Structure formats: structure tokens, C-alpha cells
């Protein structure tokens, strides 16, 4: 039967070859029409023969697999054809994209299995892990979601929108979606495979072979991470392809729109945060103010706690980020030598936290840069929306410094609009290009892969001692906590008053207990509850990696560089410390547990 199947294949190949040969010879003789008819006739016979063979030999694994590929391709082609007839070209591109990504993933899995095909026991476990992921449908659902998300998302966006926003949206949601989908897949796979092996006792067979428990866990981790690498590679290529297709689709609103895509989004830019101008030191300003206050109110300001001092300095910084009408503030940027050398445009990035008139306001800003007055212009600033003002890099001085003075001036044609309040830290930044989009995307995907490595190690370690549902819940809790660590830290900082901020260690503990008792005595039950909640929250955050610091989707979509330093930091802390740490804990737990259960 198998040999007959092979004959069918060779006959098909012979038909195609002969048809092409006859058509080529005929065409060379100048009989174009005859060549065309030869292709049609030979192609039809070959098609019928091929379809017959696919049906007839469908019991053979290879033929069945080939039949599936042919069926999926034909279905995609038919759908694309129907979309084309109905005038939805973007739909055709999306279908082609879905098919291409599915094909790439299928081919990639085949290649991956070959790469993991050595005689090493660890690689054997890894390859079986890949098989399990694909055949038990856990990963297949995620692969399907990725294959749909990446091509369909950019094509589904409204073409009336600015191209820049569409590309930013595509990048942001694709990368975030890929991170979340693969994160969930990694957790489910890691927990399911070890917990399943223990529950279904496949572990009896695997670990009675010459493979240590560490090797077993390592093999599982390698398998999951190899699959993650493949999926990230394919989705990364998909994201890149569709973003470039969008950029070149000719659907930009105007030239400025296209230029802003190329200069602000599909780049890797470094940002420099604004510092107070030379000679301004908020510490000194505070000292002067407090001296004045003590002179005026000697009893009231005799004792100022460290917390009060910090609050006053923060207030001074906030005032520095606020520009009142008819007023100006100076912002100083350093380390811009690299930008100066490139002869490029530096972007002044303004991010107002709030404007005077609510959601949107129009202001007129006058700029003076390193002493040179720039043309006054009108800018429309909206709450929490970024605006960019181009500045020639030639204005950067020899030491790489840039002093920007921003004045909130009256617009003669409009009423006074009020003050502008920039977000502290990132509210005023100078951006300049240091690299291309491709490298930035690659680094971002690598950081994502490193984070997935931690999740895989965490899932495997949890499942060595916990059942699947409990291990999954634990991992999801850590994943959410770690990803939103920055937000939680900020929330906890604002959640209830600290007992004492000027002491640490056991003194802090005593102070906390004292505060708790005091609150209860005063009948402030809710306030007293906040203290242990805050302690638990802070303890939890101390026990999970700050994955939020490595949120790269926003950086890539905003055209900001995902630098080598961030990548190195992720590799060192998330990869080197947390992943290895989790792996070691999992290995120790696994070594100490008995693999068999009571069976008497």
C-alpha cells in the first residue's frame, strides 16, 4: 500500500514535470497559445490525479497530512477569492496573512522537532513537550489566536484614522496580545505537563530511566521555551510584515503623517528626562523657604519631619512642571552628544497631565533653546496625550547639553487658557534616534522571551508540588502581580498612611504594630485593616520580579528604544536570578517528593 502511494506521488510529479517541459518547448517554438493549453490540460489532469490520490491514500499518515495542508490552502484561497470579489482587498491580505503564519508555524514545529531530535535525554523530554503542546491542543488554541490576531488586527482598523495611530495601535496591541497569550500558554503548559505526568503516572516510566529529576525539569523548560521562541519569531515576523505593509499601503493622511510614522514610530529613540537648569537645586530652595518660614512662624516650623521635607520638595518639583499663563520654566537636558553628531532632529516630547480647561485646550508656547528663540507656535495639548515638537540637533551645545525654556504666552486671538501641568518624570523629555525599528522589535521580543522563561520555570516549579488548578492559580497571581508591580507599588504607597517612614527594620515593625493598636483603640477599623493589607501587599511584591519594568510593547509602539541595557537587565534579573532561582526551588522540591502514591 505504501509503495503504491509512493507511485502515485511519482506519477503526479512526472505529470507536472512533463507538462511544464512540453509547455516550455512549445512556448520556445513560438506557440504561446498551444503552451497555454498544454498547461491547462496537464494541470487539470494533474489536479484530478492529485485529488484522487489524496482521497485514495488518505489512510497513510503523510498523505493525510498533505491532504490537510491542501484542504486548508484551498479553503483559504476560496475565502480570499470571495473577499476579492466583494472588493475587500484588506480581507484578502488578512486571509493570506493567517495562512502564511499558520504555514510558518507548522513548518517551524516540524523544524523544531528535528532540532530537538538528538540522542540527549533532556532533548527527548523537550521534544515530547513540544508534541504534547501541539497535540493536546493547549498550544494550538494559542497558535490559532496569534495567527488571527497579528494579520487581522491591522486590516480591521479604520483607514480614516491617522496612519501613525494605526501603526502604533497595531504594534501596541499585537505585542501586548502576543505577550499575554504566550504568557498564559506558558503557564498552562508548564503546570499541565508536570502535574499531568504526576497524576497520570507517566513519570513512573520517565524517571525510572537514566534521567535525573533536574534533567526532566530542564527538558520540559527547554521544550516550552523552544516553542515560545518559534511562536515569538513567527509572530514577530508577522507583526513586522504587516506594519511595513501598512506603512507602504499609501493610506496616510498626508506627508506629515507618513513622516511622523517614520520618525516617531518605526524608529528606536532614546529619551532624556528634563532636569532643573544649572544653579537650581530644590534642596537649597527648600532650605531657603524653611528658613523664611521659621523666621515668620518659629514655633510652627521648629520641627519638620523627613516626610514633610520630602513632601515639600515634591511640591517644588510639581511647581516646576507647571507653567502658569504668562510665565515660563526652564528644562535642562544632558548627554545629547550622540544626537548632535547624527545631524538629526531632536523631538521635544510634552506630556501634559492636565490642562486648565479639562480634556483639551489650545495653548501658545514660545520656546528658547540654548538661548536661541524659536518661532512662536500654537499647539493643541490634550490631557495625557503626547505632543512632539521638532528641534534641530545643531542647537545642542558642544557638551551635549540643551536648555529649553518654555513660555506659556497669550494668544491674541483666543482667551487665556490657563496653566499647563506636565506629568512628573516623563512629562518633558527630549527624544533622539539611536537605531531602527527592526532591531528594536527584535530586542523587545527577546525581552518577552526572557519573561516567558521565568513563567515557564515558575509553572514547572509550582506543579512539582501542587495540582494543576492550584499551580495555575498561583502562577496567574504571580504573573499579574509581577506585570503590574509598578502600579501595585504606587497603589500601596497611597494606600493608608505609613506607620513611620523615618525608621526601618524591626523599628518599622514595632511602629506598624503600634499604629495598628492605636487605630483599633480609636475605633478606626478600616484604617487599621489597611496596615496589614499593605504589609501583605508589600511582602508579595517583594517576592515577585518586577516584570512591569520590562513592558516593551509601549516602548516599541512609541518608537522608544528597547536598549541593550534593558535587555541585559532582563537577562540578568529575570533570566539569571528569578528563572534560575525558580528552577532551583522546583528542583529541590521535586527531589524531596515521592513520585508514587499510596497503592495498597
Amino acid at each position, binding site marked *: 500500500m505504501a509503495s503504491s502511494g509512493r507511485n502515485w506521488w511519482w506519477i503526479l510529479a512526472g505529470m507536472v514535470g512533463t507538462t511544464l517541459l512540453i509547455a516550455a518547448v512549445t512556448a520556445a517554438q513560438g506557440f504561446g497559445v498551444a503552451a497555454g493549453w498544454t498547461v491547462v490540460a496537464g494541470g487539470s489532469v494533474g489536479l484530478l490525479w492529485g485529488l484522487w490520490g489524496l482521497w485514495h491514500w488518505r489512510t497513510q499518515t503523510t498523505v493525510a497530512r498533505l491532504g490537510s495542508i491542501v484542504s486548508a490552502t484551498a479553503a483559504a484561497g476560496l475565502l480570499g477569492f470571495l473577499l476579492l470579489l466583494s472588493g475587500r482587498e484588506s480581507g484578502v491580505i488578512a486571509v493570506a496573512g493567517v495562512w502564511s503564519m499558520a504555514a510558518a508555524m507548522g513548518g517551524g514545529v516540524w523544524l523544531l522537532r528535528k532540532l530537538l531530535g538528538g*540522542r*540527549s535525554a533532556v532533548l527527548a523530554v523537550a521534544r515530547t513537550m513540544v508534541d504534547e503542546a501541539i497535540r493536546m491542543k493547549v498550544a494550538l488554541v494559542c497558535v490559532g489566536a496569534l495567527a488571527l490576531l497579528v494579520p487581522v488586527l491591522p486590516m480591521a482598523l479604520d483607514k480614516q484614522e491617522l496612519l501613525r495611530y494605526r501603526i502604533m495601535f497595531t504594534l501596541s496591541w499585537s505585542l501586548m496580545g502576543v505577550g499575554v497569550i504566550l504568557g498564559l500558554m506558558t503557564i498552562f503548559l508548564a503546570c499541565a505537563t508536570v502535574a499531568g505526568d504526576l497524576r497520570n503516572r507517566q513519570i*513512573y516510566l520517565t524517571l525510572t530511566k*537514566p*534521567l535525573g529529576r533536574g534533567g526532566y525539569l530542564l527538558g520540559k523548560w527547554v521544550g516550552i521555551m523552544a516553542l515560545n521562541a518559534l511562536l515569538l519569531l513567527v509572530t514577530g515576523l508577522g507583526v513586522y510584515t504587516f506594519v511595513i505593509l501598512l506603512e507602504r499601503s499609501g493610506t496616510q493622511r498626508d506627508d506629515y503623517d507618513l513622516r511622523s510614522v517614520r520618525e516617531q514610530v518605526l524608529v528606536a529613540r532614546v529619551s532624556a528626562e528634563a532636569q532643573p537648569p544649572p544653579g537650581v537645586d530644590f534642596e537649597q530652595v527648600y532650605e531657603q523657604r524653611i528658613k523664611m518660614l521659621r523666621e515668620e512662624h518659629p514655633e510652627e516650623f521648629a520641627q519638620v519631619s523627613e516626610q514633610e521635607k520630602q513632601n515639600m520638595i515634591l511640591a517644588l518639583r510639581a511647581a516646576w512642571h507647571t507653567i502658569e499663563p504668562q510665565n515660563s520654566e526652564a528644562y535642562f537636558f544632558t548627554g545629547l552628544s550622540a544626537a548632535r553628531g547624527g545631524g538629526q532632529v531632536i523631538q521635544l516630547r510634552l506630556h501634559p497631565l492636565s490642562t486648565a480647561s479639562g480634556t483639551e485646550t489650545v495653548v501658545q508656547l514660545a520656546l528658547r533653546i540654548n538661548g536661541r528663540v524659536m518661532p512662536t507656535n500654537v499647539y493643541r495639548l490634550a490631557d495625557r496625550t503626547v505632543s512632539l515638537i521638532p528641534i534641530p540637533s545643531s542647537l545642542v551645545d558642544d557638551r551635549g547639553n540643551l536648555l529649553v525654556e518654555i513660555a506659556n504666552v497669550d494668544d491674541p486671538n483666543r482667551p487665556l487658557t490657563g496653566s499647563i501641568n506636565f506629568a512628573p518624570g516623563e512629562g518633558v523629555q527630549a527624544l533622539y534616534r539611536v537605531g531602527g525599528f527592526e532591531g528594536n522589535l527584535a530586542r523587545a521580543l527577546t525581552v518577552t522571551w526572557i519573561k516567558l522563561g521565568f513563567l515557564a520555570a515558575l509553572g514547572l516549579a509550582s506543579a512539582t508540588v501542587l495540582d494543576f488548578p492550584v499551580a495555575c492559580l498561583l502562577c496567574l497571581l504571580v504573573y499579574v502581580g509581577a506585570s503590574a508591580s509598578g502600579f501595585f507599588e504606587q497603589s500601596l504607597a497611597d494606600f493608608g498612611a505609613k506607620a513611620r517612614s523615618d525608621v526601618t527594620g524591626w523599628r518599622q515593625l514595632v511602629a506598624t504594630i503600634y499604629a495598628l493598636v492605636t487605630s483599633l483603640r480609636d475605633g478606626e477599623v478600616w484604617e487599621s485593616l489597611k496596615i496589614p493589607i499593605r504589609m501583605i501587599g508589600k511582602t508579595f511584591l517583594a517576592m515577585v520580579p518586577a516584570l512591569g519594568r520590562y513592558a516593551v510593547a509601549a516602548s516599541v509602539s512609541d518608537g522608544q528604544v528597547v536598549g541593550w541595557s534593558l535587555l541585559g537587565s532582563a537577562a540578568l534579573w529575570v533570566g539569571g536570578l528569578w528563572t534560575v532561582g525558580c528552577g532551583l526551588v522546583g528542583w529541590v522540591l521535586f527531589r524531596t517528593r515521592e513520585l508514587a502514591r499510596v497503592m495498597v
Partner: protein
Amino acid sequence: MAVERGGAGAGEPIVVCGKLTKIFRDFWMRNRVRAVEDVDLEVRRGEVLGLLGPNGSGKSTTIKMILGLLRPTSGRIAVFGKRPDDVAIKKRIGYLPEESYLYRFLDARETLDYYGRLFHLERRQRMRRVEMLLEMVGLEAAQRRPVGEYSKGMQRRIGLAQALINDPEFLILDEPTTGLDPIGTRQIKDLILELGRRGKTVLLCSHLLADVEDVCDRIAIMYGGKVRLEGTVDELLVRQDVMTIQTGLLDDRTIEQVESVLTRHGRSIERVERPRQKLESLFLEIVQRAQAEGAATSGARSGGKIAEFLTTDEQADQGQALIDRLAGSVEEPASPAQEVAAPQPQAPSPATEVIESLAVPKPTEAPPRAKGPHSPAKDQDVDKSVIDRLLDPGSGPGKAE
């Protein structure tokens, strides 16, 4: 790796359990189940040891401790002189658990390939063994179907194949015939006998007494977590007061002659009967006939011959071929059987064994012997001179006592 029966090291213990106790405790560390208690057990190189006992007697727990899947609460275990959780000793062990805990998503070929890779087998050798084992367990036709679709018996077959992929020195079989049809059961028994002949050590755990009796050299019976009785099959089962003689069909006159001989020795014939064919034999005959007629089946086929690498010394085989090539031998390549015979010491033939057993006193712990109603060794193991002496007391080398 293979050790010839009776060769160097034969009889030395490869598993030693001393005062082995396993108590399963609950969360509060209260003793919940005392599964194994003060078990002293030895498995000696080259023997087939049957571990018998009813359900819950502690057989599987003992095996899991030997394999390092459980840790003893007290007592000690040494396997090949090392701790049971030592990874190095696992290379020498094959294990078939009480159920086939296989990955449902892998097909038979992938399953064997996976376990072969866990033993670091080189690809070509792995492929060769996979082919042989698939043929041996009769799953060639179903090799591309996921194991999850297999019947229980088919899963047992593939489970057995994975236990043999490394040509183990020490094979642990936990209820190996559970779920198997008579063909598979017979094949497993033949396999154990063959492995025993090759000097492999087998620990057979079962509550099917007939299986154990057919193939084991020594038996340990467990109950309530303790070993209640231990000894060789002959020691435990041979009745010293009765003897059965099997011969061809005799006419009444010959029977009378035999009776008169017995009468002279103060004995009489208690029963004369024509033994019935065993149902197992009848069943196997019918199945073989159906297969010869080409009847189709979607399940497992009758297993083929025992995989070649289990019946020959593969490494020696390959080594000899290499030496021949290096020496530039111009001789025709020998047949596989000849290749095996050359480098290996020849195992004593069953006939030689009989002569030797007559010539020398039987040791207290006899070297392991092939048994079983279908074993060729068993057939040739019958000492026909006893019949001759009964029919004609004057002939033969000695007198019957």
C-alpha cells in the same frame, strides 16, 4: 551488558532489601497505611524471581522502592550496590508498571523512540530496536496510531516493548500479563524464559499464580506487607511422595506390565488418564490458523519472534563485525546466528543440563532453569531413562530405588 547464565557473577545479589519498611502517613504524620514491613529480600543475578501476593500485599510498593519512586520509611535497599535513586543504575533496568502509563498523544513508534532516547541510544541502534520490538509485540500495523487509541492489551504490549528498549540486565515486570490476550500472555512467558536463558535477572510481580509457576526460579510470597515464604519453585512445589510419568499411548498389556513392575517395588498405579490439550494451546492454534488464512484485524497481531537484540549479544555482534572488517576478512559474512555464536560462550544445551543434573548432586539453590509447558527446554528436560528403567529394571546404568 548481557551476562551469561552461570557465568561470572551469577547468583550474586543485585537487589538487597534489608528490614525494608514503608509506612504511608497522612498530613498530620499519623500512620495511615503500613504497606511494607521488615521485608528482607534478595534478587540474585540471573534468576527469575516471582513476587506473589494478593492485592494490597505490598508487592508494587516494594517494587517502587526498588525503583526509587518511593523512599523507605526505614530499612535499606541497594540496587547494583547503589542507592535506588542513583541515575547511573537506571541504564541497566527495564520496568513495566502495573498499568501502561504512556503518553496518549504519541504513537507507538514515537513512544519507543522517546524511551530509547532517554537511554541515550544512538539513532541507528534505536531505530533498529524499535523496528524489532514493534514486530515482536505485533504492533507494526498500528504503529502510527496514538497510544491513547489503543486497547488495554495493546498498551500493555507497547509498555512491554519500552521496558526492553535498553536490553536491560534487570527487568522488573509488575503484573505483566494483565489485560493481555492468551497470545500476549504466552509471548510474555516465552520472553521471560528467553531472558532467563540469557542470564538476565527478572523480578516478576503477579497475583496470577500459574504465570509465576511457569517461569520463575524462585518465589517470594507476600501478605500484609511481609514476606511469608521464600524459596525455589522446586523446594516449594515439588511433592516428594508422588511421581508422574508421561509417555505415548500405551495399550492395556503394556499398562499391566508397568503395573506389575510397580507392584514388585511395592507401588501401584493410582490413575491412568489421557491428558487433555490445554485450552491455551487450542486457542493459539485457532488464531494461528486464522492468521495463516489472512483474516484481517485492526488490533494487535500475534507478536513476532523475540527481538533479535534480546536473544543475541548485540554489542558483541557489532564488535565482531568491526574486527572482521578491520582484519580484511575475505570470508562470506556469517549468518546472524553464526555471528552470535562465535564471540559468545555457548550456553549449555538442555540435554547437557539433564546429564549434568544426573551426574552431580543438585545444589540447594539450583541455577535458574527454563520452565513452562511450552518451553523447548522443558520438553527436553524430561529424563527418559527413568521410564526405561521402570519398564526394564535390569537395563540402564543404575537401579531404580
